[in-house]
């Protein structure tokens, strides 16, 4: 039942394909659609090539070798994950544009004139590819590192003894074995790339995601926006399938091996500095530069209205994030427990569907929610107007209910997966024992499972909380009129080229984003320590 409600937006989007958009779709197809397709495909290919290059090479270096700073790089390479890609875009574009500090400095240094030199333009498709690659490569990095760490050292030692040099060991043994994990990470990257709104919007690249938003806000056509969403949904489903399949085979690989994991060996000579340099680049470009730019901007100018507005915005953001985290956790716990307690195929497949939300771009979810929500609201209003004299107004679509529903659909998968993993660690005999000792099903949940799941529940709540703080497209479309959050405010200021004012909010979002990254790092090192002790 709940899973069904969650899937309503998806069905609404798919249903729209059969509807008539009063010529808007035809107009779109003639004018901008081919551009959307071209840009989205080039973006996906560009990011799809560069993120594995950055993510896999750095993961291999820090897993297999020791070199100056390797210990720091092992966690620092995750840092760009703390910055939402739209903030990376704002900062890097600002730094590298014509009037930005870097070009100005170059001109002053070389005494160049505007026409004397060429400099890459960040506000372009290639700029968007670079920004997304820098922001998203950690997904591949994590996946590849997991893949490499779970490989048995003896396998690599065997290939060493059989005469394979370091390059051949990497390309013919380590890489093929880690391929399922890497594919899973890459699929995540591509899903995020296709769903990306803020960064590509700022780089003035028109993709499906920005198109959906424009069609809705500019032309006001929900049907045409839904139809665009349906196209996007098709591509995302395909990627989700790839991710699902590779994750399954990754699991297979993982369980089949129980032996000594790889111990890093020291790189000697000058090469070790090269390794450090390679690992430095993505951290500097993807984290240090954007953060320091925002810090500079805040110190120089900052948001003049920060004092009065900041409190209100932060309260809005925190309220939304708090409610969303609490409700998704409750729902996720409930669904995961249902799946554990009943062996019914219907429930487990329904839960699977509910978990699909994370793969769907926020904009698509928002568009998919509006139609059904209006329909329900309309029915209720007709009923109340006919039978009572209440004036409810737009009590659903005009309130935070809409945006909370959107978050529910988008983020339910996080608690669902985290809590299911937590449940998997609880031995079935524990709940058999509880039943044998007289605890009913509800008592078992509260007296045994919830205390044992505290860590998982907390981790999942934290991740949802921060994701909601960062979320942009769904919030933009679904928020009540005049309701602003930190992310929305930063987006609007940046759109108006008032980046120095946006920097304060941006730093707040990044600070919040660091928390789950630290947590993630803790979790992954803890699990690696766990496997070593086995």
């Amino acid at each position, binding site marked *: 039942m709940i899973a069904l409600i969650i899937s309503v937006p998806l069905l609404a989007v798919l249903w729209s394909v059969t509807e008539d958009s009063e010529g808007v779709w035809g107009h779109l197809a003639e004018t901008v659609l081919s551009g959307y397709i071209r840009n989205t495909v080039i973006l996906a290919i560009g990011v799809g090539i560069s993120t594995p290059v950055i993510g896999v090479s750095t993961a291999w270096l820090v897993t297999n070798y020791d070199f100056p700073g390797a210990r720091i790089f092992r966690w620092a390479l995750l840092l760009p994950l703390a910055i939402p890609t739209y903030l990376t875009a704002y900062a890097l574009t600002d730094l590298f544009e014509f009037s930005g500090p870097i070009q100005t400095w170059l001109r002053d240094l070389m005494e160049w004139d505007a026409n004397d030199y060429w400099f890459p333009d960040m506000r372009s498709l290639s700029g968007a590819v670079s920004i997304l690659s820098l922001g998203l490569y950690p997904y591949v990095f994590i996946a590849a590192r997991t893949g490499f760490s779970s490989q048995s050292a003896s396998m690599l030692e065997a290939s060493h003894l059989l005469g394979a040099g370091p390059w051949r060991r990497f390309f013919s043994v380590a890489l093929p074995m880690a391929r399922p994990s890497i594919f899973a990470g890459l699929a995540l990257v591509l899903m995020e790339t296709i769903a990306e709104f803020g960064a590509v919007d700022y780089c003035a690249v028109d993709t499906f995601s920005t198109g959906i938003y424009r069609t809705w806000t500019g032309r006001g056509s929900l049907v045409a926006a839904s139809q665009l969403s349906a196209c996007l949904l098709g591509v995302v489903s395909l990627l989700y399938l790839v991710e699902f399949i590779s994750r399954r085979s990754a699991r297979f690989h993982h369980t089949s091996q129980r032996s000594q994991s790889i111990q890093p060996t020291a790189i000697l000579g000058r090469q070790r500095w090269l390794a450090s340099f390679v690992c430095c680049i993505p951290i500097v470009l993807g984290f240090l530069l954007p953060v320091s730019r925002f810090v500079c901007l805040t110190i120089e100018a900052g948001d003049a209205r920060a004092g009065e507005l900041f409190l209100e915005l932060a309260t809005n953001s925190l309220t939304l994030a708090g409610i969303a985290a609490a409700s998704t956790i409750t729902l996720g716990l409930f669904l995961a427990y249902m799946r554990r307690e009943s062996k019914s195929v219907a429930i487990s497949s329904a839960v699977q569907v509910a978990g699909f939300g994370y793969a769907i771009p926020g904009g698509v979810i928002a568009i998919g929610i509006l139609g059904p929500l209006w329909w329900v609201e309309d029915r209720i209003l007709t009923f109340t107007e006919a039978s009572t004299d209440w004036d409810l107004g737009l009590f659903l679509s005009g309130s935070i209910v809409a945006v909370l529903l959107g978050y529910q659909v988008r983020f339910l998968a996080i608690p669902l997966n985290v809590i299911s993993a937590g449940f998997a660690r609880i*031995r079935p*005999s*524990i709940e*058999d*024992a*509880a*039943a*044998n*000792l*007289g*605890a*009913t099903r509800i008592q078992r949940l509260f*007296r*045994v499972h919830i*205390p*044992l799941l505290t860590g998982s529940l907390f981790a999942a709540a934290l991740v949802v909380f921060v994701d909601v703080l960062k979320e942009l497209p769904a919030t933009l479309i679904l928020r009540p009129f005049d309701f602003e959050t930190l992310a929305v405010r930063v987006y609007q200021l940046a759109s108006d080229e008032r980046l120095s004012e946006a920097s304060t909010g941006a730093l707040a979002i990044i600070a919040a984003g660091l928390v789950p990254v630290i947590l993630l790092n803790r979790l992954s090192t803890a699990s690696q320590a766990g496997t070593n002790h086995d």
Partner: protein
Amino acid sequence: MTKSTGIQVDRITHRFGSFEAVSDVSLEVAPGEIHCLLGASGSGKSTLLRIIAGLERLQQGTVTVNGELISGNGTHQPAEQRSVGMVFQDYALFPHLTAIKNVLFGMPNRRSAESRAKAEQLLSDIGLAANIHSMPHTLSGGEQQRVALARALARTPSVMLLDEPFSGLDVQLRSGVRNAALKVLRSANVATILVTHDPVEAVSSADRVSVMSNGRIIQTDTPDRIYRHPADETSANTFGLVNQIPFEVRDRELITRFGTRSLENESPPETLFVRPEDIELSIGGDDPNAHIESVTHEAMTTLYRVKSNDSELYVRTLPSQKIPVEKPVRITLRTIERG
């Protein structure tokens, strides 16, 4: 309180898909009796326990505790309402609760001082007075096992199910822990079903044993009688090495190549099973009938594999009885006990 009449299991059959895990099993355990379910893994013992505990829904047959039908004929009393305690193979202690809180978990009014006093008493009865506030992971296997037992006893169940609870313990520790546990259960007058695959455990602790194989109970009897008079080859093999000796019956006499015995009014067995220690081995002298093939020195005894004509037999003797391997020997059956 209803008078305790133990547990009756009547004609239970249980399938997982097309696989029949339990076939037409009937069992009766009186209050205070220790009843052992003995069989190899996969013989259906654990499934039977789970059905009795209500953790697995009964498909066919009935389970009655203290005269009350709890499973079968459309009745399924939920696991949490049954007067059936269980100690799991992995103890299944709640890892987030201390020893005493584990014991209190299933007690009615678990916050009352009375319950607390009872839980403390139970833990100190089994020698864990010093550990009542310990977390499970800080306890040894034997201590965890005793906490699990105390936890199950705290609900004063009429029936106790023990699912190989001693198999995880060191051999030196095992018999001590087991004897203490079973003593507690006997004195509490609980009908106990102990699942094991260890014949030594069955012989040393059970009042009666049911031998299970492929989901069926082959034989139910006292350990000694099953040992001496196994119903069939499986039952015989469950208790260790056994010889099958060919015989014929003439004039109410059971005649083998190694001795003869009067049957009197007894009906002759289908197969004659003789344990290695029920055969006497002596130096052949004038009339040898076998020769020794190999010798294995065991802890307390010596096991000989001897050959007589075409048949191979195992004979167990005390190590003090030295028999040269190269000499022909004579084997005779000891007086075969009456069944």
